[in-house]
């Protein structure tokens, strides 16, 4: 077999593997029990599948400009997938759209409870700017209790 034919077949195999990972992501989104686990299934395998599709297209087309463009696309996807996952999971946690019994560890709830206790007990005389992170969390938690008006 010529070198081109070998690279064509390898590229097709990478494409098939990448499509399989995208299928795995879709199956995970359908089958997992709640929002948080579906978010895991939606972000991780689909980015990896895109990397494999990148390799497959590069091997098939054999053009360095294509490789540069696709590397940029995959880098953008890697940078933006955590942003969307983080925002979705934060909204799900704050909105109570998630059954906390599904989790073994819930660090955000512990942090919120700790900072709320801190706000209630010791910070009556403190300036609001002293602990901006805990203050913001406390304000947001208070706004959530008030019904969403911030």
């Amino acid at each position, binding site marked *: 077999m010529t070198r081109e034919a070998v690279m*064509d077949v390898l*590229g097709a195999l990478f*494409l098939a593997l990448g499509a399989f990972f*995208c299928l795995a992501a879709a199956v995970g989104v359908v089958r997992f029990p709640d929002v948080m686990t579906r978010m895991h299934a939606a972000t991780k395998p689909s980015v990896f599948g*895109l990397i494999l599709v990148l390799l497959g297209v590069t091997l098939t087309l054999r053009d360095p400009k*294509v490789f540069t463009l696709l590397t*940029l696309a995959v880098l953008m996807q890697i940078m933006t997938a955590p942003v*969307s996952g983080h925002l979705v999971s934060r909204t799900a946690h704050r909105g109570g759209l998630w059954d906390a019994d599904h989790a073994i560890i819930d660090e955000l709830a512990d942090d919120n409870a700790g900072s709320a206790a801190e706000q209630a007990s010791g910070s009556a005389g403190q300036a609001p700017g002293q602990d901006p992170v805990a203050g913001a969390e406390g304000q947001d938690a208070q706004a959530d209790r008030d019904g969403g008006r911030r």
Partner: protein
Amino acid sequence: MTVIITVAAAMLAVAAALTLWRIVAGPTPLDRIIAADVLVGVVIASVGITAALSGTATGLPILLGLSLIGFTGAVGVARLIASPTAVRRVFDRRQALREEDSDDT
């Protein structure tokens, strides 16, 4: 090689149908927008497969543009769900209706 790429395209079609099901059936808007994000990823992969099948790199800037702005849907929906109590109210009402239906049958 064409057979393998056709199998890959068929797998992507099944993945798209599965994400469509989750967009229809997701109990919360977050489920729907997560599935739409996966659908954008499936579209990006299928643009790559089309480029590999046709042998030209003409369609690849679409892939770049989609990967740049494909996440804005999830960000927008997650920010627009600003009132957690309202979403919770709707969710609980629909849950109660679902339980009512299952009690009737």
